[in-house]
């Protein structure tokens, strides 16, 4: 009635070896993880700093995500790692739509200095984070 454990284990191991997941599944799984992580960061940050004042959680996810993407790309990760962590997790963790809507909303309600600071700050901090990732990879002996 029930298959013996060794047969089941062999079948499982066999399927694990031969399994060749579609890039869409790898990226999608990473995307689900990234979206949940971003939601979690948003909850943590907005409970401390109200997002109506300054969209700090979007800056946080964009800078952290850019750093992580820089790290996996510059460290020369393999194709499926790039798909899972780069395109999937980091791609979904960071967001452009929230950033652009929040920037326009700051600007139209008269907080023009904050809007410009947000637009420039996201870019400068994300580029600095990629620079930091580059420095880390450069000094780490592989």
């Amino acid at each position, binding site marked *: 009635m029930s298959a013996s454990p060794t047969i089941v284990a062999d079948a499982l191991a066999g399927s694990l070896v031969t399994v060749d997941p579609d*890039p*869409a599944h790898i*990226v*999608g*799984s*990473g*995307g*689900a*993880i*990234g*979206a*949940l992580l*971003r*939601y979690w960061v*948003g909850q943590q940050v907005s409970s401390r700093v109200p997002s109506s004042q300054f969209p700090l959680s979007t800056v946080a*996810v*964009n800078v952290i*995500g*850019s750093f*992580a*993407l*820089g790290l996996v*790309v510059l460290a020369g990760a393999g194709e499926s790692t790039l798909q899972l962590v*780069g*395109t*999937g997790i*980091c*791609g*979904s*963790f*960071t*967001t*452009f*739509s*929230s*950033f*652009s*809507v929040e*920037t*326009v*909303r700051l600007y139209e309600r008269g907080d023009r200095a904050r809007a410009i600071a947000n*637009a420039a700050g*996201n*870019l400068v901090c*994300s*580029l600095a*984070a*990629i*620079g930091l990732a580059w420095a880390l990879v450069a000094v780490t002996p592989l």
Partner: protein
Amino acid sequence: MAADHPLVRLETLALIAVGGFAGSNLRLFAMELFADVPSIVLVNAVGSTVLGFLVYEAEYTDHIGSRTRTVFATGFLSSLTTYSTFALQTAFAAGPLAIGGIVVANYGLGFAGVLMGRALARRLETPQPTGGETA
């Protein structure tokens, strides 16, 4: 209706995860169809337009449920659009002209998309025929 019931929270998380799966896949599809830089500009502009519409629709007409909006925006749209790939493309761009072009294309079309979404949401705003309710 307790919004913080464990099952409600689990439902929200599940919907965000599904949205993240679908959004990142659509971005992958765009990246396979178009070159690296234009594909990111495209998803960022489209995602900004739809999110702009959703946010201003909430302000003007508010037909869409707020939880649906949160889940769709947080799960799908924010996963469709991306900042990290854009930042990396900017960092690796060859020369100031390419850097400027990538930033101007993403920021310009992203902001223009939000304004387009806002204009679309305003078009849906129709005066209440009864006039009984004021917001």
